[in-house]
């Protein structure tokens, strides 16, 4: 795939992103509850002051002008002020981002390292008890509501066995000076193994909860594609050549079987973004998802707007990456 094709595909994203920004803008522009009223609250403000605030926020302009201004500001990363924090929205979001990214990545790792072996073994030992349990597991994984599964894990591992913490990223006594803002990395860089261990214990349950649906889906995808590959002539041929089964599996079959897994994983990483809100709420994880949920209840709309836009753009970029990965890995598909 040539570079020009990639650029062409990137250009095709522009109308989609414009549409996304328009929808997000409309969503918030028609939200009941006037932002100026919310900012004023119960303070005493004269009509002139109120009009001035309205002018400052650009709320006195016609709606299409407001969209153009919103878009122009958004491109520069300016989403206005968070009413609640009295700071720029982008600043608040950036602050919460590392916690969410760290959680998402650990969930992704857990999903990949569980689903691939499970799917491969299920395919190799088709119809065995392992295969059947893998099928039941993937069915359960997509049927379990994440918020409930998280609470169950808390009840068992945090409350009943008292093995893992109930909420948060790390305890106050173990805070470390941030470098990357990813606690698992920072604690290691500072040489604080005890703090690393604690951060790991904090992230385990939320990451398992977040990664469960993805693990279930990837297990099924890996199993199906592995079964398909095992039926191919070149695998039979490799076996006929007298290669060991292990060699056939790992050097020939697995490499091709993982193509769909990788691209589905990229797409599903996007749906982890939605799961973040639920999981962060259940586990009191101080990330972006929980911030969005809290912001809705205090009517901090600029923040909700920016976050929804941020999630959507990330999602589009992940899907784009999935497309590119798929074509890169699979020479038979032409973009």
């Amino acid at each position, binding site marked *: 795939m040539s570079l020009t094709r990639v650029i062409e595909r990137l250009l095709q994203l522009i*109308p*989609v*992103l414009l*549409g*996304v920004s328009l*929808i*997000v803008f409309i*969503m*918030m522009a*028609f*939200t*009941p509850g006037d932002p100026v009223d919310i900012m004023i609250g119960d303070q005493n403000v004269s009509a002139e002051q109120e009009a001035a605030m309205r002018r400052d926020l650009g709320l006195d302009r016609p709606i299409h002008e407001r969209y153009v201004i919103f878009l122009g500001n958004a491109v520069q990363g300016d989403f206005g002020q968070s009413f609640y924090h009295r700071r720029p929205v982008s600043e608040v979001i950036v602050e919460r981002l590392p916690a969410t990214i760290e959680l998402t990545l650990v969930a992704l790792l857990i999903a990949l390292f569980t689903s691939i072996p499970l799917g491969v073994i299920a395919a190799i030992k088709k119809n065995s008890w392992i295969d059947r349990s893998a099928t039941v597991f993937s*069915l*359960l994984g*997509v*049927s*379990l*509501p*994440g*918020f*409930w599964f998280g*609470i*169950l894990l*808390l*009840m068992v591992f945090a*409350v009943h066995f008292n093995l893992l913490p109930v909420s948060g990223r790390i305890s106050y006594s173990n805070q470390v000076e941030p470098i990357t803002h990813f606690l698992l990395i920072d604690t290691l860089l500072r040489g604080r193994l005890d703090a690393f261990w604690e951060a790991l214990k904090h992230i385990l349950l939320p990451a398992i909860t977040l990664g469960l649906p993805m693990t279930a889906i990837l297990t099924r995808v890996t199993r199906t594609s592995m079964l398909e590959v095992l039926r191919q002539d070149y695998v039979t041929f490799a076996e006929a050549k007298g290669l060991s089964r292990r060699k056939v599996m790992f050097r020939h079959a697995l490499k091709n079987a993982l193509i769909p897994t990788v691209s589905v994983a990229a797409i599903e990483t*996007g*749906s982890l*973004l*939605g*799961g973040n*809100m*639920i999981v962060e*709420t*259940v586990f009191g994880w101080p990330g972006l998802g929980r911030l*969005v*949920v809290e912001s*809705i*209840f205090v009517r901090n*709309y600029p923040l*909700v707007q920016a976050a*929804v836009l941020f*999630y*959507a753009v990330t*999602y*589009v970029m992940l*899907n784009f990456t999935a497309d590119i990965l798929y074509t890169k890995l699979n020479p038979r598909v032409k973009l």
Partner: protein
Amino acid sequence: MTTSFKPLRTGRPKFDPNSIFWRNMQTFANNRLALFCAFVVLLFVFISIFAPWIAPHDPNETDLFRRLQPPAWKDGGTWAHVLGCDALGRDILSRIIYGSRVSIFIGAAVILVATTIGTLAGLAAGYLRGWVDTVISRVVDILLAFPYLIFAIGLMAMMGPGLGNIILALAYKEWVIPCRVVRGETLATREQEYVEAARALGASDRHIMLKEILPNILSPVVVVSTIRMAHVIILEASLSFLGLGVQPPTASWGAMVADGRAFILESWWVSTFPGVAILLLVLAINVASQGLRDAFDPRFQQ
């Protein structure tokens, strides 16, 4: 031109046990597990319809003497309140029974609205092509760019809570899925000979879309909508869990799980049982719809 066209088929087709539809239904009926799960789903529907007669108590009746009363088989539990009581002393079993109404009604309503809109839009895009297709496909692309739950949360933040608003918030994006399926099937079907024959006989576009193409692409639509139903029920429960769903005191499973969060140290039953109800219903729908898909989609028949 359109007036001269008379459809060849008159009246309803007679019952034919050898038709593809009935053969597929038989394949489905042979799948014992799927059949059982379909039965479980129907049982949930039955419970939700007849909730006032089935529920042992008023779901909103509070009694602080029964606050956090454990289930019957635990110390302090009584058989009058089999699954125990919540923090306001309300009977959990009765609330689960009434809560099934919210889940099933919203699930069914969203799927019905989304499937109708999606099917019509997909037919129009796939059959008419041209600018209609361009516009619909662009809108679909844009809606697909939003993670589902985040889109619904944004809409709920904007519209405020309420039954109608949840249905709208979920249907706004859900119609995209049947739309894509129908568009694809229509694109393949519009080149078939019988469609061409109808066109040659002077049938109107509307007639071709609704009378010729639609009946022939209905089974994938039905399969997809049953699979999606499970998804929508989880989404509704997630919104309720976050406090953006049906508002209290109306019992909904997601909100009941959320209520119990504060008591997981002592009273595990408050959160656990509503979650079991969600899991059972969603699992049953998933297995039954997979059975339907295996029976109706030739690509899955081996």
